[in-house]
């Protein structure tokens, strides 16, 4: 019994030892028809978080969630001496598609937690997220499912509009444009004030009028929204 627990402690020691590794992080968009804007894949110390459920979104998180701009978050990670892999998909990641980020934390083994974010489009301030998950160090392949969150910073009016933080509406990059309706009058609701699991978009089935510019038959989703496959070498 004693020997068993000693062995277990040794294994835990080995697992938490300050050894870096080579990581390949593949992110697949599992939704039916929702884009991911440029992804941010970041390795950083355990105590850092890009977001926290129940907490108020930071301005960099809001900037990402409302318009897909990850530059302020990249700046935060750089400021922490973390590892930021910005935009591994080279633009929008379409539904069904995958992107791969690679990094090595041999030189900075304290960067042993993984965060991932990208805006969900079409939404007002929805994002796919992974918050500070401990990175496995044993060589192997690991899979995780990610959820959709609402940053709580903007009313979900579901209308074409702006991607700037604090401005209403959704940014509409060219690939999304033909999928959206026009002339919506706006869905009810207000900025919620805290990060939470996204309750999904409503949309409507009227492409030239109605309350929403989102297509209810196409753009709804249920969690999970992404699959992450981590390969440790």
């Amino acid at each position, binding site marked *: 019994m004693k020997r068993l627990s000693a062995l277990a402690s040794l294994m835990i020691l080995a697992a938490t030892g300050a050894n870096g590794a080579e990581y390949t992080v593949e992110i697949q968009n599992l939704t039916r028809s929702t884009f991911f804007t440029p992804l941010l894949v970041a390795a950083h110390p355990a105590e850092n978080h890009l977001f926290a459920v129940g907490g108020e979104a930071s301005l960099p998180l809001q900037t990402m969630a409302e318009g897909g701009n990850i530059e302020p978050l990249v700046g935060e990670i750089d400021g922490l001496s973390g590892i930021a892999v910005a935009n591994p998909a080279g633009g929008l990641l379409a539904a069904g598609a995958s992107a791969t980020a690679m990094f090595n934390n041999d030189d900075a083994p304290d960067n042993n937690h993984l965060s991932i974010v990208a805006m969900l489009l079409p939404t007002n301030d929805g994002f796919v997220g992974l918050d500070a998950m401990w990175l496995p160090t044993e060589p192997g392949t690991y899979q995780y499912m990610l959820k959709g969150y609402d940053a709580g910073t903007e009313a979900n009016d579901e209308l074409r509009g702006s991607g700037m933080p604090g401005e209403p509406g959704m940014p509409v990059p060219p690939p999304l444009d033909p999928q959206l309706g026009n002339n919506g009058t706006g*869905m009810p*609701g207000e900025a*919620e004030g805290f*990060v939470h699991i996204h*309750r999904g978009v*409503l949309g409507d089935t009227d492409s030239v009028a109605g309350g929403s510019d989102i297509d209810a038959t196409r753009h709804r989703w*249920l969690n999970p929204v992404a699959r992450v496959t981590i390969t440790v070498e």
Partner: protein
Amino acid sequence: MNKQYLIAGLCVLTLALAGCGSDDDDSPMGMTPTPEPMPEPESMTFTYAVNITNMTRGQPLSPLAAMVFDGEFQMAKMGEPVSVALEVLAESGDNSQLLDAAMGSEHVYLARSAEGGPLMPGLSQTMMLEVNTATDSPEGMYIGLVSMLANTNDGITMLSGKDLGGLQVDDTITFETLSYDTGTERNSESADTIIGPAAAGGLQEGFNAERDDFVDELRLHSGVVSFDDGMASSALSEAQRFDNPVMQVEITRMQ
């Protein structure tokens, strides 16, 4: 022969830990060794800090029912009718019957409710669970949590029998819980049948013994429809809609 061998074997085992008594009458020093008393089984306290966060936009969580039990206790099972005690919790948020029933089981170490009222969306709370066991190596150490999604007819979230046996002091384990429909009440979403604040102005009935859902079984919840999604008779707005997971659970062993 066999018996002697067994005794010798036991003696060797004991020797490694505490020395082995001898029944040799002419032992040196003339001491008559007294048989070592069997050590009393040591009681032990396991203390867990259970931190929960409401991950939803608009579903208050009723006071959490927390239970710690050995491997024999059975929580509600998918695809089966739920107990009346769980029906009461799922329709009214009152967890007292469920906790009483659990405390009546010899397999339950502890069953208690979180203090205070409902846990509002986005908020967190921590509950300390102090489990006293008769031995320092109890048969099993499992945790179960249940809470109502207050702005539903009979929706709950549940953490069902997670093993804490391997959790060392200061270790933390994290879960995210799903939403379930207990199947005990039709999902009318009307202000007369939902107890939560979204139904203010209606009768807000809690428990009703009638089981009028289309299936009297525990299943995963399909979500609420809401007035904003076209259900004219619904007391719920788009803000009460939800997707999984609905509750985050962090359990830290303190002692």
